[in-house]
């Protein structure tokens, strides 16, 4: 019964987000511009350089999963700003005054970020189709990628909520978001293979969750080699669980 209630609250918050996107998805479309540029310009130009991508793939094929992961990361890492926004109005206190458990509100909010993540994922897969990037557009693989996108968004939205509960203002959240995303992106295998990095950067890339997400997405969309997939997914699930728990504990700091 109590698990049922927990799940019901979590999915209600995801539904709330989906309904908002249905009313107005302008923001998410605009967020698709940047990844489109990465693919259509950066990808096309560097496509002429051989040796950037291993396994004989074209460079644009190689970075497509990386760009997808990056755009989900952007949506998730700034999700805390929305939470601060909802705090500044009375909405967050209202959500927390419902009989729903506090942890269900946090998980639900993380899943709501996942809904936005899926939207981004679908847009970029469509973009890849339009640009004629040769990927494995197998239904199950694409579904798997979107599932990973949800988990990934939940993971970093939780991190973002923890940051929000510590920093408490929208401006600071903008600042920290900018400060985190680019280093995460560059210190990962999103736009170049880890093997090409200097030793010190490799060490960072190995512990960077984004690397595991990109690896998982790349194995499904590009190589079809699932050997590292279990490790990738396990790493993602463990970090999501830890961060969502920490976010549930720290959220009360935001309303005190």
């Amino acid at each position, binding site marked *: 019964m109590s698990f049922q209630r927990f799940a019901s609250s979590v999915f209600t918050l995801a539904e709330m987000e989906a309904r908002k996107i249905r009313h107005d998805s302008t923001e998410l479309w605009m967020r698709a511009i940047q990844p489109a540029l990465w693919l259509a310009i950066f990808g096309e130009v560097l496509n002429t350089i051989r040796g950037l991508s291993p396994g004989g793939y074209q460079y644009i094929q190689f970075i497509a999963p990386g760009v997808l992961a990056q755009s989900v990361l952007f949506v998730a890492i700034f999700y805390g700003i929305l939470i601060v926004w909802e705090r500044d109005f009375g909405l967050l206190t209202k959500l927390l005054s*419902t009989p729903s458990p506090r942890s269900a509100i946090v998980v639900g909010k993380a899943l709501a970020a996942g809904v936005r993540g899926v939207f981004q994922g679908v847009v970029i897969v469509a973009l890849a189709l339009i640009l004629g990037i040769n990927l494995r557009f197998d239904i199950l693989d694409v579904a798997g990628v979107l599932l990973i996108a949800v988990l990934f968004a939940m993971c970093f939205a939780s991190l973002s909520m923890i940051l929000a509960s510590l920093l408490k203002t929208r401006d600071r959240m903008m600042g920290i978001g900018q400060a985190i995303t680019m280093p995460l992106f560059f210190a990962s295998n999103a736009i170049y293979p880890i093997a090409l990095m200097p030793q010190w950067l490799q060490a960072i890339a190995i512990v960077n969750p984004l690397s595991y997400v990109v690896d998982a997405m790349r194995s499904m969309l590009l190589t079809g080699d699932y050997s590292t997939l279990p490790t990738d997914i396990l790493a993602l699930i463990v970090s999501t669980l830890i961060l969502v728990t920490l976010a549930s504990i720290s959220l009360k700091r935001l309303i005190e």
Partner: protein
Amino acid sequence: MTTIQESISLSESEDTAITVRDLTKVYGGSFRAVDGINFDVRRGEVFGLLGPNGAGKTTTIKIITTLIAPTSGEVKVFGIDVTSKPQEVRQSLGYVPQAISVDGDLSAYENLLIFSKLFYVSREDRDSRIASALEYMGLAERKDDLVKHYSGGMMRRLEIAQALVNRPKVLILDEPSIGLDPSSKKQMLDYIKRLNKDFKTTVLITTHDMIEADELCDRLAIMDHGKIAVIGKPKDLKKSVGGEIITVTLARDQSEAPESSKSSGISSIFASGFPKELGTLVSIENSTIKILVENGDRAIPRIIDYFERNSIGVDAISLSKPTLDDVFMKYANVSLESAGRASDTRSVRRTFTRRSG
């Protein structure tokens, strides 16, 4: 703590909705936002917490709604403790926070739907309740419009509609009329009254508006500096101020008075003590003196006579029936208006503590 008429026997009983005992909330180790307060909200009544900004009303409400934890003391909602079983407590509460708490990016219908789900209203009841709530609050025609296009008054009505859908046993409203124009404010008060009457919903409301409190509340507690100064029915509280109030405005130019009494004029009122048979001094602010009397019409000539004998020039004199503002002034020892200016005058606080201690 002073109590009027009813000496509250501080015991929980069947007809109690909310029990607050020795509740204290300390911020930053020393600031006592709520300082050992006690009160009961009875089932079915409209209970008001009245006081200036910073009196501790919102903190009290946030503790009752389990949003923040008390430092010490006990709060029970229908016998359930807020710290040990917060989710159960929230199941019986509807909360309208001070800030607008509906989601502008959703329609009115969606706002009601989402929150009814978060309140675990059963699937069978949901749709019919949402439809009738929208009808009841006069929002049915615009139910599919995004709420961000609503006026402030409509948003408040939607928040009350949420309470109609979720059917909480207690509805808690924190300064609900802030930012509303007079007609929406009146409309909102009417809806709260109807909700209380039609659905027997217990209402706990905070306000700094005397007129609102007077019109709406069955009983109220006057709060200042984290303490409750007095609890009672508005009518009894006003009676307790001792009758009617005479406001005397002293002449600015006291030159007509002889030199000797010029300096001693006003201060002599205090020095020798204001004659008790005339009335009780409530306050002296600048050149305005307020005096409590049993019967104003009879007291005026005697008071004029008194000032004349003491050679104090009087500019104007007026008689008014007591308002809750006067009550506030008597029990909190400061006018609500000036207390609201966040002038944390220590002397006021000391007197206040002595009075209530």
